[in-house]
């Protein structure tokens, strides 16, 4: 018979056990009267050494009342008891044998009132206070755990099983629940002792009433080598530890009575565990990508090993509290990962609870395996991406590790912060306040494949630093590891971008959307900037488009009215880059803005960086627009493209701009084959020239009917210097002028003596022509512009015998229209050899008369009926020749002379 142990001075920690038949016809509110426990050495002395394999005693007493017969009876019948053990107080059921439940209540010799569990499955004693008075002691056996429990213990009480089911709760706390207390078990209280080393010979006398099938064996060895079972917590800083208990009764089910117990010394002084400096903590950690390929998508394998001391004479290994891992530079987040990725919300992960994890499958970024000495099975699970911002760290990146073994009722949820360096993308992962549960190995694997979480650096050997801290000591243990990338080393130096650009509807003179696309092969240098020169005549209608103000552009808040197109960006490493915009997300816009970096206009690409579960804000890239003043050819030049966003490198794979505002982009009226030219710059300073063939069709269907009216005004007599006004009108929808030559009537000679001041080319380029070099004025109306262009007409030095006639047209854009002056058959001729392929509805050129008049009459005009010879070449190849009669103000002699 097992001797009953008396409770020594109560010293905390308690698990409750107990079942009682309640008295009372009208049951009073059920309550727990006392709830206490202690930790002792084998000799019964109190023990506070952290990690010690102590004897752990729990005791519960139910209140008693006297019934009408004067008998003392319990004041209620325990139905359920739940006990939250302090964090870190754990038992390891794998070090002892197990007993099938059926054997606990079946003895082939003595019947079902006795157990036939093997001696090596005994883990402690239950000393039961009977309602009839007296105590009985029965061995507590380690049962084969039922599905859903981490461990299950039990004892046979009058043929019924009293089960103690252990679950893993919040923070790794062990929660023991007694739901199996049958009302048939007529007990009023129980002291439960769980042994520190159950297989030790010291327990031979207590191990079982039945030993190897024999009754009343005084010495019943476990026949297993001594191995630790219970271990005290390893957090000395926690101070006195609290154990919570709650119980309800069959009379008032669901009405729980609570009790708590603070760990204390025999004299009642609260205390926690101590002696943490005596604990040995030697973890190691290795980190390696899943590929040796450079600049490639990669998974990551992390293995954290914490050797557990299983020597029953030693102290338990302290539990891991914090892990900080700094990955090497270059091992960065892969934007491709966002393709199809989802994130797990706080509600779905349910941190701090044992609720089922409902993170979407698409938020799975890896797997985890944990080997713990507490279970024979591995605990497996998944790594989920936490929802940006609404995670415990309010961070962009965070991971949830969920490891579960449903069969063992184990559910571990961890949250870790992943902090990318905003400038380099270097990653630091931190998991803190991890549960106080022992484990030997934790293997974390982030998924590889095309949409892997990370990108490898270029070739080389890299080191990873880990700092591992236990609950026992504040000092971290450092563990470094390294890996080598030595495959595909040459790819990163290449830069062969692709380039496609043009209009979708290549009909001459018609409006069409214009798109530009730059692609970059995987693994090459990243794109840093994009420049492009459009074909002549590929223009935009600026009229009626409000501009995005600079402040709006800077804020990424251009108004919708200024939108002229859309953009799309594909980014990431590997075969499956992520594209922005994604379905349902904001569409990046391209907006027309005002002057920028010397250009008269600019484009602002506002790209909401929303991919998968991420929202990295709006990226605003401004592109200068320049217009060649001679050809009106448009060129664009982007600002440097951002290379990293909030620590996530953007490996551009596909950049697309689609200028698609209705009626905005206009095709040329020349069908000559041309090209959209470009220069793509890399982050390494490379600049690659690219072009994309460009040609429109249908020019022959365009009309070409320019009309020119000439008027000479002022004195009409010979030697007078008339004023000349030429007015060109163009019908809508036709081809634009490519070249214009006007040969004045033979009545006019060039008055060379009036050519006094000429603007040099240098002056002209510097916009510093002397005022005296102005000889006329020009004004041009275009449907593409809100206002006409206008400006003075200069004589500018040239390489020809005569200076050029240059109209400097200013307005929304600047155009220099340069005319060559020469003579043809002794007649003065001005030829605009290069007229931009741009629609002009009206053009008026006025040359001064009088003292600044460049013309001189060689006859009386009113008698001459002078005619000019005019030839226009259209951009579409058509020509228009005419000999218009030059109008003369015969009734207003002398007026022009005054000028």
């Amino acid at each position, binding site marked *: 018979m097992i001797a009953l142990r008396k409770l020594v001075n109560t010293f905390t920690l308690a698990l409750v056990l107990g079942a009682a038949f309640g008295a009372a016809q009208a049951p009073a509110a059920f309550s727990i009267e006392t709830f206490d426990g202690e930790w002792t050495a084998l000799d019964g002395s109190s023990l506070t050494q952290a990690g010690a394999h102590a004897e752990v005693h729990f005791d519960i007493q139910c209140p008693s009342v006297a019934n009408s017969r004067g008998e003392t009876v319990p004041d209620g019948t325990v139905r359920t008891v739940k006990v939250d053990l302090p964090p870190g107080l754990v038992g390891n059921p794998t070090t002892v044998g197990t007993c*099938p439940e059926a054997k606990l209540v079946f003895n082939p010799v003595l019947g079902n009132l006795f157990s036939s569990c093997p001696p090596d499955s005994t883990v402690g004693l239950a000393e039961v206070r009977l*309602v009839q008075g007296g105590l009985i002691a029965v061995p507590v056996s380690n049962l084969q755990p039922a599905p859903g429990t981490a461990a299950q213990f039990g004892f046979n009480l009058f043929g019924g099983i009293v089960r103690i089911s252990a679950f893993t709760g919040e923070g790794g706390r062990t929660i023991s629940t007694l739901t199996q207390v049958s009302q048939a078990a007529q007990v009023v209280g129980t002291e439960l002792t769980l042994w520190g080393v159950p297989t030790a010979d010291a327990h031979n006398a207590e191990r079982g009433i039945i030993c190897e099938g024999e009754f009343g064996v005084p010495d019943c060895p476990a026949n297993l080598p001594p191995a630790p079972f219970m271990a005290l917590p390893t957090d000395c800083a926690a101070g006195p530890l609290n154990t919570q208990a709650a119980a309800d009764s069959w009379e008032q089910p669901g009405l729980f009575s609570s009790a708590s117990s603070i760990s204390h010394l025999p004299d009642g002084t609260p205390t926690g565990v101590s002696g943490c400096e005596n604990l040995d903590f030697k973890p190691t950690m290795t980190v390696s990508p899943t590929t040796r390929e450079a600049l490639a998508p990669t998974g990551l394998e992390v293995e954290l090993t914490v050797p557990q001391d299983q020597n029953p004479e030693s102290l338990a290994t302290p539990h891991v509290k914090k892990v900080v891992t700094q990955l090497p530079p270059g091992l960065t987040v892969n934007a491709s990962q966002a*393709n199809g990725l989802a994130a797990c919300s706080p509600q779905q992960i349910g941190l701090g609870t044992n609720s089922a994890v409902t993170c979407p499958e698409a938020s799975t970024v890896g797997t985890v395996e944990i080997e713990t000495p507490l279970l024979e099975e591995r605990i497996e699970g998944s790594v989920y991406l936490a929802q940006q911002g609404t995670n415990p760290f309010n961070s962009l990146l965070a991971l949830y590790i969920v490891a579960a073994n449903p069969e063992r009722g184990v559910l571990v949820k961890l949250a870790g912060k992943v902090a990318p360096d905003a400038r380099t993308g270097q990653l630091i992962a931190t998991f803190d306040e991890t549960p106080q549960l022992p484990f030997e190995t934790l293997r974390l694997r982030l*998924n590889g494949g095309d949409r892997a979480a990370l990108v490898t650096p270029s070739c080389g050997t890299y080191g990873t630093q880990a700092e591992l801290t236990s609950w026992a000591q504040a000092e971290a243990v450092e563990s470094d590891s390294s890996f080598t990338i030595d495959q595909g080393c040459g790819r990163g130096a290449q830069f062969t971008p692709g380039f*496609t650009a*043009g209009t979708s509807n290549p009909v001459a003179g018609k409006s*069409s959307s214009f798109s530009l696309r730059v692609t970059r092969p995987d693994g090459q240098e990243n794109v840093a900037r994009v420049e492009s020169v459009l074909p002549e005549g590929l223009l935009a209608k600026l009229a009626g488009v409000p501009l995005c103000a600079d402040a709006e552009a800077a804020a990424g808040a251009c108004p919708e009215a200024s939108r002229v197109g859309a953009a799309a960006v594909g980014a990431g490493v590997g075969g499956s880059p992520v594209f922005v915009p994604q379905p349902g997300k904001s569409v990046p816009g391209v907006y027309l803005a005002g002057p920028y970096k010397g250009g008269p206009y600019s484009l602002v690409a506002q790209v909401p960086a929303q991919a998968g579960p991420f929202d990295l804000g709006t990226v605003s890239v401004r592109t200068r627009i320049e217009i060649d003043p001679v050809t009106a050819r448009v060129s664009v030049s982007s600002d440097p493209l951002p290379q990293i966003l909030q620590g996530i490198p953007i490996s551009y794979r596909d950049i697309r701009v689609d200028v698609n505002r209705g009626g905005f982009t206009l095709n040329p009226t020349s069908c000559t084959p041309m090209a959209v030219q470009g220069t793509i710059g890399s982050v390494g300073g490379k600049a690659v020239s690219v072009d994309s063939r460009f040609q429109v069709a249908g020019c*022959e269907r365009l009309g070409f009917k320019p009309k020119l009216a000439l008027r000479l005004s002022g004195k009409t007599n010979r030697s007078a210097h008339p004023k000349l006004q030429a007015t060109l009108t163009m019908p809508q929808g036709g081809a634009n002028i490519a070249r214009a030559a006007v040969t004045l009537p033979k009545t006019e000679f060039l008055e060379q003596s009036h050519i006094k001041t000429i603007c040099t080319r240098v002056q002209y380029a510097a916009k510093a022509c002397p005022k005296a070099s102005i000889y006329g004025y020009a004004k041009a109306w275009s449907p593409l512009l809100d206002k006409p262009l206008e400006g003075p007409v200069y004589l500018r030095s040239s390489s020809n015998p005569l200076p050029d006639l240059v109209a400097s047209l200013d307005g929304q854009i600047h155009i220099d229209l340069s005319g060559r002056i020469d003579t043809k058959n002794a007649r003065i001729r001005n030829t605009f*050899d290069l007229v931009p392929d741009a629609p002009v509805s009206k053009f008026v050129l006025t040359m001064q008369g009088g003292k600044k008049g460049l013309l001189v009459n060689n006859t009386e005009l009113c008698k001459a009926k002078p005619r000019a010879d005019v030839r226009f070449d259209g951009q579409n190849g058509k020509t228009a020749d005419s000999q218009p009669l030059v109008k003369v103000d015969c009734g207003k002699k002398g007026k022009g002379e005054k000028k």
Partner: protein
Amino acid sequence: MVSPADKNGANVSQAEIASGEPRALASLVTADGNGISYVLSGPLKDAEAYPLYNFVRSSRASDWMTRSMATKQTPWPVGTMMSTSVAISASTTLDYSELGLVPGAVTGNGNLYLRDSATGAYTLVASYPSPAAPTYEQQAALAVGRDFAVFGQPHALTPEANEYTGIDQNLYSFYGGELHLLNDPASVAPVYEMQDSRARYVSEDGSRVYFKQAPQGNPQASALYLSENGAPGRPISVSRRPGDLPAPVPAELIGASADGSVAYFTSFAPLTANAEPNRREVIYRYTVADDELVAVTLGPEPYAYKFDREGQATPVSEDGSYLYFIAQAALAPGGVTGSQNIYAWHDGETRLVASFPEGFQNDPRPFWSLSSDGTKLAFVSLSSLTGYDNASGSSGCDGLGGACGEVFVYDWSKDQLHCASCPPAGEPARGHATVGGIQQLTINPGQRTYSRSIRNDGTVFFDTQQKLVASDTNGKRDVYSFQEGAVSLISTGRSPSDSVYHGMNPSGTDVFFGTEERLVAADTDAQVDMYDARVGGGLASQGRHPSTAPCAGSGCQGTAEAPPPPPAVGSSEVRGDGNASNRRDRGKRCSKKPPSRRAQKGKKKSKKAGRQGRRAVACRGGNR
């Protein structure tokens, strides 16, 4: 899924071990398959009590609903005994409580109730003053049905009954709404010896009760009696031999028909004219209609007629026409004297089913199931009966010589024996196969229930750890069917823990098994649940369970968005020159000289060519 989604952390009980040998469980299934009573390892949330044997009842209407069958407990110490069920059938329980739960019942008395398992409604059977400290055993019962109960009681519940204080009992029948004393008040009924329900001491409608009755103080002299319709019993183990006194002689019932019209019993006393008077144990067949007694086994020394050494019963068909028994005598061709032989008897013909090696006392195992019509018998044997060696290389079969028990099926109509659980490819045996389960559902140890496992067409349901089909990949116990030589999985073969057979209805349209695996969407916990594999499929309301196979790698992520289609760039596809004619290029002036005559001629040609869409250049310069 039959069991509730929320089981308060409890599991459907899966384990029953006899002598270290697993055997199938037995849950009580109603004839229509719409009800099943089984044991949970803990109380449901709404349970009013948690007795040691915590059984629940699930009933199917549009969906399965489950109620705790725990009887509300009597407050202690007013009560002297726990409220509990003492007998159970698929439809009804016989409950003891000291609470007055219906009119006529008195709180503080011992009250016996019939309780409808489907509705939970109580019907009072008896209410009597509760003496101090009654025991569970004093509530021994033989059978309970929808409107009857047969039970033993030491207390005098009828005027003519005796009030006993020891272990002696009166035998009562609650039948036709009245309580009847069946035994002679001068005798006692050793109810504990009559509690193997497979022997059918009580007919299905409760109208016939076979019972043993012995003079007080001489329980060894118990003879077999038959009570009909609540009337006092009349002896049937009475010699028909000419000249013998018509005195009851000791006998043991080993089986009866479902309606009780036919009964088989053994006796060492010669009761018929052809029985030899040498105290050989003979099986007799008794028919109620003509009060006739026929000796079934005659000839050499037979021995051990009971099929099941753990109980008192042997397989008898529902109509009583088929009987299976064991004898160590050669009663039919092939039988071996001194060995354990299983025989089948029908209509006067005895056939050998199987003969076990001489001296091997472990066979057959006490697990069997008989089809309703009696033509098919399933049983478990450790011996190699059909050629498969279930001993060599076996594993997981401790004790019993190391051989693994296999399920065999005998078909009377073909006189053939098949092994249902032997691996088709002859792999070494692994673990015992079980059939004909057993389970104690109430506090009353005699009230064991046994599962039905075989249909009239010979389809047998069993569980085994052996992998019999390729899709059984879990290495755990799984539930199979064997039909016309082919085995099929009933459980999935993928559960992380054992799936255990629990029972079926007589027609076999509903087969119940327990498994931890989640097979429907409504199953949301990790506990062991009861499932019904039924003809016609599952319940749509419970939904199909999504695949539990975890995703792996980037396959977990949603479908990758395909890149948007490349933009249409028509301008890069245009070829040729759409200009009317190639205008003079600019940027390089033409010669100032007037074009020569030849050039002018060429110019004219150019205009013509332009009209014809051809290209003719009068003055070429650089391209723009």
